[in-house]
């Protein structure tokens, strides 16, 4: 079955334009979601990680809890918000890529935030004190924290991307798996599985993993170029 799927994967990649558009759509949707999750989660995580304040403990618990947000529930809530009868219905975003981005964003943020917070929390305070002493502004001090915790920030992004690109429940609900419009790799896999076509399902899975692997390799290389250790 595996050999069959690999050759099916190769065949799909070579012959099926639809597969390529699904792959690109997956990357686009999940990439956008993770990028936005990073833009929200990393700065916020750095702030929370750098400071000690009242209510920080519970806040961190809430963030960690967010990691256990079931995609179906997230999908449901986003659905209810974007539904024509919901508060944001007038935007007409349901069954669109934007809706999928929103749902994936909700899923990615807690993971990115949680890992960032604990990564930045474990940056030695001397690093920040030293930066301040040399005249770092608040932002410049935060950049030191980012630089010190960079490996974990990378893991945060990788884990966030992993969570959303592999997720199916939420995008299925708010995207609708509409062929040519909102179908992404996981919903396509799901559809094939439902139809009992395991080989193409596996083939799509293999393609997804290959892309993830290549992206990881690239990231690791980028990280090593700017940095050592």
């Amino acid at each position, binding site marked *: 079955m595996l050999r069959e799927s690999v050759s099916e994967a190769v065949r799909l990649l070579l012959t099926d334009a*639809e597969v390529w*558009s699904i792959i*690109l*759509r997956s990357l686009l949707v999940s990439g956008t979601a993770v990028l936005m999750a990073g833009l929200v989660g990393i700065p916020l995580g750095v702030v929370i990680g750098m400071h000690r304040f009242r209510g920080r403990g519970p806040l961190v618990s809430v963030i960690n809890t967010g990691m256990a947000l079931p995609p179906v529930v997230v999908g449901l809530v986003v*659905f*209810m918000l974007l*539904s*024509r*009868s*919901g508060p944001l*219905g007038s935007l007409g975003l*349901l*069954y669109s*890529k934007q809706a999928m981005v929103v749902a994936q964003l909700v899923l990615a943020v807690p993971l990115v935030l949680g890992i960032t917070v604990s990564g930045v929390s474990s940056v030695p305070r001397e690093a920040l004190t030293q930066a301040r002493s040399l005249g770092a502004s608040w932002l410049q001090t935060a950049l030191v924290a980012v630089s010190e915790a960079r490996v974990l920030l990378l893991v945060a992004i990788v884990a966030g991307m992993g969570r959303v690109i592999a997720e199916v429940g939420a995008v299925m609900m708010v995207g*609708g*798996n*509409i*062929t*040519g*419009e909102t179908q992404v790799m996981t919903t396509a896999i799901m*559809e094939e599985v*439902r*139809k*009992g*076509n*395991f080989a193409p399902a596996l083939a799509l899975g293999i393609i997804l993993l290959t892309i993830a692997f290549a992206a990881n390799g690239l990231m690791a290389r980028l990280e090593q170029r700017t940095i050592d250790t």
Partner: protein
Amino acid sequence: GCSTDDNGAGARLLVASTTSTYDSGLFDALLPAFKAAHPDYDVVVNAVGTGEALKLGESCDADVLLVHAPAAEQEFVDAGFGVERRRIMYNDFVIVGPENDAAGVASADSAAEAFARIAAGGFGFVSRGDDSGTNKAELRIWESAGLEPSDGWYRTVGQGMGATLRIALETGAEGAYTLADRGTFLSMRENLPGMAILFEGDPALYNQYSAVAVDPGHCPETDVAAAETFIEWLESDAGQQTIADFGVDRYGRSLFVPNAGD
């Protein structure tokens, strides 16, 4: 951007369909034919459970429903969510199970008797348990047989037809029985080795599909004209012929029998 992603210029019509219709591939035949006839309209299909489909209609997130749960549909219309039920096609349910048919379902006189034989022997039976049309039909048959299926041999999975069939295939040493709609079963048959249609033809196994347009009174944003155009096309000769032709080349027979206007 990817051109296939871009919405066409035309109106976008949201059809909420049951997975059974969608997964059989019927829409792959219907949509191009409709598009050819009405290039102004873009139909997108959302394959969900019957319950969810009705809910989507209620929340105005679908314009047309294509479902097969007559009682629930009627409730939907009565509640003012839908305009009317319009019959489009039917097929039938079949009792499927392991080829060796230990319960002897094949020789039963009625669906109820077939179910009774399964129950009597405690042979495995997998129920969809998802309030779908199929599930409701199954429950009606148990009722008519005067049986209350019990734990142990009777398993409720709350999933779609495809998943239910697969679970039936994998249950126990040989496989279990289940009630399936013919279309889905035939379309999945090659992936279900050792399973066969054991009982068919009882009137109780009749499976009517209807189209329901969402009521613009309830959902002002719905595109009434588009919905009407689509349903009318389904009822038209062209539409009905497309349904009748679907599956013949692949399975040697139609999966759905058009019956609009009957």
